Protein backbone atom coordinates (compact mmCIF):
# COMPACT_ATOMS: atom_id res chain seq x y z
CA UNK A 1 0.00 0.00 0.00
CA UNK A 2 1.80 3.12 -1.19
CA UNK A 3 1.22 6.78 -0.43
CA UNK A 4 0.24 7.22 -4.10
CA UNK A 5 -2.57 4.65 -3.68
CA UNK A 6 -3.70 6.50 -0.59
CA UNK A 7 -3.71 9.78 -2.52
CA UNK A 8 -5.69 8.27 -5.44
CA UNK A 9 -8.35 6.88 -3.07
CA UNK A 10 -8.51 10.14 -1.12
CA UNK A 11 -8.97 12.20 -4.30
CA UNK A 12 -11.56 9.78 -5.63
CA UNK A 13 -13.70 9.92 -2.48
CA UNK A 14 -13.38 13.67 -2.01
CA UNK A 15 -14.47 14.25 -5.62
CA UNK A 16 -17.47 11.97 -5.07
CA UNK A 17 -18.46 13.63 -1.78
CA UNK A 18 -21.66 15.54 -2.53
CA UNK A 19 -24.11 17.30 -0.24
CA UNK A 20 -27.45 15.48 -0.16
CA UNK A 21 -30.24 18.04 -0.53
CA UNK A 22 -32.92 17.95 2.17
CA UNK A 23 -35.92 17.83 -0.25
CA UNK A 24 -38.43 17.53 2.60
CA UNK A 25 -36.56 14.77 4.43
CA UNK A 26 -36.33 16.74 7.73
CA UNK A 27 -40.05 17.50 7.59
CA UNK A 28 -40.80 13.77 7.06
CA UNK A 29 -38.66 12.85 10.07
CA UNK A 30 -40.30 15.48 12.29
CA UNK A 31 -43.77 14.30 11.22
CA UNK A 32 -42.90 10.73 12.26
CA UNK A 33 -41.45 11.44 15.70
CA UNK A 34 -43.18 9.16 18.23
CA UNK A 35 -44.80 11.57 20.68
CA UNK A 36 -45.77 14.17 18.11
CA UNK A 37 -49.02 12.34 17.27
CA UNK A 38 -49.85 12.10 20.97
CA UNK A 39 -49.23 15.83 21.39
CA UNK A 40 -51.46 16.66 18.40
CA UNK A 41 -54.24 14.44 19.76
CA UNK A 42 -54.03 16.15 23.20
CA UNK A 43 -54.19 19.60 21.56
CA UNK A 44 -57.18 18.48 19.46
CA UNK A 45 -59.06 17.13 22.54
CA UNK A 46 -58.37 20.36 24.45
CA UNK A 47 -59.54 22.44 21.47
CA UNK A 48 -62.77 20.45 21.07
CA UNK A 49 -63.52 20.63 24.81
CA UNK A 50 -62.97 24.39 24.88
CA UNK A 51 -65.13 24.84 21.74
CA UNK A 52 -67.88 22.69 23.32
CA UNK A 53 -67.90 24.75 26.55
CA UNK A 54 -67.94 28.06 24.65
CA UNK A 55 -70.81 26.92 22.39
CA UNK A 56 -72.73 25.59 25.41
CA UNK A 57 -72.73 29.03 27.06
CA UNK A 58 -73.07 30.95 23.77
CA UNK A 59 -76.36 29.20 22.92
CA UNK A 60 -77.71 29.24 26.52
CA UNK A 61 -77.21 25.53 26.98
CA UNK A 62 -77.87 25.74 30.71
CA UNK A 63 -81.22 27.43 30.19
CA UNK A 64 -82.18 24.88 27.53
CA UNK A 65 -81.43 21.98 29.89
CA UNK A 66 -83.40 23.61 32.72
CA UNK A 67 -86.36 24.15 30.35
CA UNK A 68 -86.33 20.51 29.25
CA UNK A 69 -86.21 19.28 32.86
CA UNK A 70 -88.99 21.68 33.81
CA UNK A 71 -91.17 20.49 30.90
CA UNK A 72 -90.50 16.85 31.72
CA UNK A 73 -91.42 17.45 35.34
CA UNK A 74 -94.61 19.32 34.40
CA UNK A 75 -95.55 16.56 31.92
CA UNK A 76 -95.11 13.91 34.59
CA UNK A 77 -97.23 15.91 36.98
CA UNK A 78 -99.96 16.39 34.36
CA UNK A 79 -100.21 12.73 33.31
CA UNK A 80 -100.69 11.98 36.94
CA UNK A 81 -98.28 10.74 39.46
CA UNK A 82 -100.85 8.16 40.54
CA UNK A 83 -100.40 6.26 37.26
CA UNK A 84 -96.70 5.69 37.87
CA UNK A 85 -95.84 2.07 38.55
CA UNK A 86 -93.45 2.16 41.52
CA UNK A 87 -92.18 -1.36 40.80
CA UNK A 88 -91.18 -0.52 37.19
CA UNK A 89 -89.55 2.73 38.33
CA UNK A 90 -87.51 0.82 40.92
CA UNK A 91 -86.35 -1.77 38.36
CA UNK A 92 -85.40 0.97 35.87
CA UNK A 93 -83.42 2.83 38.59
CA UNK A 94 -81.53 -0.37 39.58
CA UNK A 95 -80.71 -1.14 35.93
CA UNK A 96 -79.46 2.42 35.35
CA UNK A 97 -77.29 2.34 38.52
CA UNK A 98 -75.77 -1.04 37.60
CA UNK A 99 -75.00 0.19 34.07
CA UNK A 100 -73.38 3.31 35.53
CA UNK A 101 -71.22 1.28 37.95
CA UNK A 102 -70.18 -1.08 35.13
CA UNK A 103 -69.18 1.88 32.94
CA UNK A 104 -67.12 3.51 35.72
CA UNK A 105 -65.34 0.18 36.45
CA UNK A 106 -64.61 -0.23 32.74
CA UNK A 107 -63.09 3.28 32.49
CA UNK A 108 -60.83 2.66 35.52
Amino acid sequence: MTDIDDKIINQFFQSEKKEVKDNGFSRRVMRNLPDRGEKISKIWVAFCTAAGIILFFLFDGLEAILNILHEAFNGAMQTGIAHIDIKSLLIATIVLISLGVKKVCHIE
Partner: protein
Amino acid sequence: MSQLNDISLVAQVVVFKNARAFDELVKKYQSAIRRFFLNQTLGDSELSDDLAQETFIKAYTNIASFKNLSNFSTWLYRIAYNVFYDYIRSRKETFEIDAREVDAMHSTEQENIGQKMDIYKSLKMLKEVERTCVTLFYMEDVSIEKIAGIIGCPTGTVKSHLSRGKEKLANYLKHNGYDRY
Protein backbone atom coordinates in the same frame (compact mmCIF):
# COMPACT_ATOMS: atom_id res chain seq x y z
CA MET B 1 -18.10 25.71 18.75
CA SER B 2 -20.14 23.34 16.62
CA GLN B 3 -19.94 20.67 19.30
CA LEU B 4 -21.08 23.16 21.96
CA ASN B 5 -24.00 24.09 19.76
CA ASP B 6 -24.90 20.39 19.40
CA ILE B 7 -24.78 19.89 23.18
CA SER B 8 -27.02 22.92 23.67
CA LEU B 9 -29.53 21.56 21.12
CA VAL B 10 -29.45 18.08 22.70
CA ALA B 11 -30.04 19.63 26.16
CA GLN B 12 -33.06 21.51 24.82
CA VAL B 13 -34.50 18.28 23.40
CA VAL B 14 -33.88 16.30 26.63
CA VAL B 15 -35.04 18.93 29.14
CA PHE B 16 -37.78 20.83 27.30
CA LYS B 17 -38.74 18.23 24.67
CA ASN B 18 -38.02 21.02 22.19
CA ALA B 19 -38.88 19.57 18.77
CA ARG B 20 -37.49 22.64 17.00
CA ALA B 21 -34.05 21.97 18.50
CA PHE B 22 -34.19 18.39 17.23
CA ASP B 23 -35.30 19.67 13.82
CA GLU B 24 -32.08 21.75 13.71
CA LEU B 25 -30.03 18.64 14.48
CA VAL B 26 -31.82 16.69 11.72
CA LYS B 27 -31.20 19.48 9.20
CA LYS B 28 -27.54 19.67 10.20
CA TYR B 29 -26.80 15.94 9.94
CA GLN B 30 -29.28 14.67 7.34
CA SER B 31 -26.82 15.02 4.47
CA ALA B 32 -23.99 13.07 6.19
CA ILE B 33 -26.29 10.30 7.45
CA ARG B 34 -28.11 9.87 4.12
CA ARG B 35 -24.77 9.86 2.26
CA PHE B 36 -23.52 7.19 4.70
CA PHE B 37 -26.54 5.00 3.89
CA LEU B 38 -26.27 5.70 0.14
CA ASN B 39 -22.72 4.36 0.25
CA GLN B 40 -23.69 1.31 2.31
CA THR B 41 -26.67 0.43 0.09
CA LEU B 42 -24.71 1.20 -3.10
CA GLY B 43 -26.97 4.10 -4.08
CA ASP B 44 -30.46 2.88 -3.16
CA SER B 45 -31.88 6.30 -2.29
CA GLU B 46 -35.32 5.11 -1.16
CA LEU B 47 -33.87 2.52 1.22
CA SER B 48 -31.26 5.04 2.40
CA ASP B 49 -33.94 7.59 3.30
CA ASP B 50 -35.97 4.97 5.18
CA LEU B 51 -32.92 3.85 7.16
CA ALA B 52 -31.86 7.47 7.80
CA GLN B 53 -35.35 8.26 9.08
CA GLU B 54 -35.21 5.25 11.40
CA THR B 55 -31.81 6.47 12.63
CA PHE B 56 -33.12 9.94 13.53
CA ILE B 57 -36.23 8.52 15.21
CA LYS B 58 -34.05 6.18 17.30
CA ALA B 59 -31.77 9.11 18.15
CA TYR B 60 -34.80 11.13 19.28
CA THR B 61 -36.25 8.37 21.47
CA ASN B 62 -32.84 7.58 23.04
CA ILE B 63 -31.43 11.09 23.16
CA ALA B 64 -31.35 11.06 26.98
CA SER B 65 -28.73 8.28 26.76
CA PHE B 66 -26.31 10.56 24.86
CA LYS B 67 -23.66 11.04 27.54
CA ASN B 68 -21.47 13.51 25.67
CA LEU B 69 -18.51 11.09 25.84
CA SER B 70 -18.28 11.35 22.06
CA ASN B 71 -19.37 13.88 19.44
CA PHE B 72 -23.04 13.94 18.61
CA SER B 73 -22.09 12.98 15.02
CA THR B 74 -20.15 9.90 16.24
CA TRP B 75 -23.11 8.87 18.40
CA LEU B 76 -25.44 9.33 15.40
CA TYR B 77 -23.15 7.28 13.12
CA ARG B 78 -23.15 4.50 15.71
CA ILE B 79 -26.96 4.40 15.64
CA ALA B 80 -26.88 4.49 11.82
CA TYR B 81 -24.39 1.61 11.75
CA ASN B 82 -26.62 -0.47 14.06
CA VAL B 83 -29.73 0.36 12.01
CA PHE B 84 -27.96 -0.75 8.82
CA TYR B 85 -26.68 -4.00 10.30
CA ASP B 86 -30.10 -4.77 11.82
CA TYR B 87 -31.50 -4.30 8.31
CA ILE B 88 -28.86 -6.56 6.75
CA ARG B 89 -29.50 -9.22 9.42
CA SER B 90 -33.27 -9.08 8.87
CA ARG B 91 -32.76 -9.43 5.11
CA LYS B 92 -30.47 -12.38 5.63
CA GLU B 93 -32.96 -14.06 7.95
CA THR B 94 -35.81 -13.46 5.52
CA PHE B 95 -34.17 -14.55 2.32
CA GLU B 96 -31.29 -16.66 3.63
CA ILE B 97 -28.87 -15.13 1.21
CA ASP B 98 -25.37 -13.97 1.88
CA ALA B 99 -24.02 -10.43 1.95
CA ARG B 100 -22.69 -10.56 -1.58
CA GLU B 101 -26.12 -11.43 -2.91
CA VAL B 102 -27.56 -8.46 -0.99
CA ASP B 103 -24.99 -6.25 -2.68
CA ALA B 104 -25.77 -7.68 -6.09
CA MET B 105 -29.48 -7.11 -5.49
CA HIS B 106 -28.92 -3.44 -4.62
CA SER B 107 -26.73 -2.93 -7.64
CA THR B 108 -29.39 -4.21 -10.04
CA GLU B 109 -31.89 -1.78 -8.53
CA GLN B 110 -29.47 1.05 -9.19
CA GLU B 111 -28.60 0.66 -12.84
CA ASN B 112 -29.71 4.13 -13.90
CA ILE B 113 -27.82 6.33 -11.48
CA GLY B 114 -25.30 7.46 -14.11
CA GLN B 115 -22.27 9.34 -12.87
CA LYS B 116 -22.44 7.93 -9.32
CA MET B 117 -22.04 4.41 -10.66
CA ASP B 118 -18.26 4.40 -10.41
CA ILE B 119 -18.22 4.94 -6.67
CA TYR B 120 -20.92 2.34 -6.08
CA LYS B 121 -19.17 -0.11 -8.43
CA SER B 122 -15.96 0.35 -6.48
CA LEU B 123 -17.72 0.04 -3.11
CA LYS B 124 -19.50 -3.10 -4.30
CA MET B 125 -16.18 -4.94 -4.30
CA LEU B 126 -15.76 -4.39 -0.58
CA LYS B 127 -17.25 -6.34 2.31
CA GLU B 128 -19.84 -4.35 4.29
CA VAL B 129 -17.54 -3.66 7.22
CA GLU B 130 -14.70 -2.60 4.89
CA ARG B 131 -17.14 -0.33 3.06
CA THR B 132 -18.23 1.24 6.35
CA CYS B 133 -14.63 1.86 7.45
CA VAL B 134 -13.48 3.18 4.06
CA THR B 135 -16.41 5.57 3.51
CA LEU B 136 -16.30 6.90 7.07
CA PHE B 137 -12.53 7.43 6.84
CA TYR B 138 -12.18 8.86 3.33
CA MET B 139 -15.51 10.51 2.69
CA GLU B 140 -16.72 11.60 6.12
CA ASP B 141 -13.22 12.31 7.53
CA VAL B 142 -13.87 10.29 10.70
CA SER B 143 -10.71 9.27 12.60
CA ILE B 144 -9.75 5.59 13.11
CA GLU B 145 -10.43 5.88 16.87
CA LYS B 146 -13.93 7.20 16.23
CA ILE B 147 -14.63 4.52 13.61
CA ALA B 148 -13.62 1.94 16.22
CA GLY B 149 -16.20 3.51 18.58
CA ILE B 150 -18.86 3.50 15.87
CA ILE B 151 -18.48 -0.12 14.80
CA GLY B 152 -17.56 -1.31 18.30
CA CYS B 153 -14.21 -2.98 17.67
CA PRO B 154 -10.51 -2.26 18.44
CA THR B 155 -8.56 0.27 16.38
CA GLY B 156 -6.30 -2.53 15.10
CA THR B 157 -9.28 -4.26 13.52
CA VAL B 158 -10.39 -1.00 11.89
CA LYS B 159 -6.88 -0.55 10.47
CA SER B 160 -7.03 -4.09 9.01
CA HIS B 161 -10.42 -3.44 7.39
CA LEU B 162 -9.13 -0.14 6.01
CA SER B 163 -5.98 -1.71 4.66
CA ARG B 164 -7.86 -4.52 2.86
CA GLY B 165 -10.45 -2.07 1.53
CA LYS B 166 -7.78 0.34 0.32
CA GLU B 167 -5.94 -2.41 -1.52
CA LYS B 168 -9.06 -3.51 -3.40
CA LEU B 169 -10.02 0.10 -4.18
CA ALA B 170 -6.53 1.07 -5.36
CA ASN B 171 -6.52 -1.86 -7.79
CA TYR B 172 -9.99 -0.96 -9.08
CA LEU B 173 -9.15 2.74 -9.50
CA LYS B 174 -5.84 2.03 -11.24
CA HIS B 175 -7.58 -0.46 -13.53
CA ASN B 176 -10.11 2.24 -14.46
CA GLY B 177 -7.56 4.94 -15.15
CA TYR B 178 -7.94 7.02 -12.01
CA ASP B 179 -4.16 7.03 -11.43
CA ARG B 180 -3.71 9.25 -14.53
CA TYR B 181 -5.43 12.27 -12.91
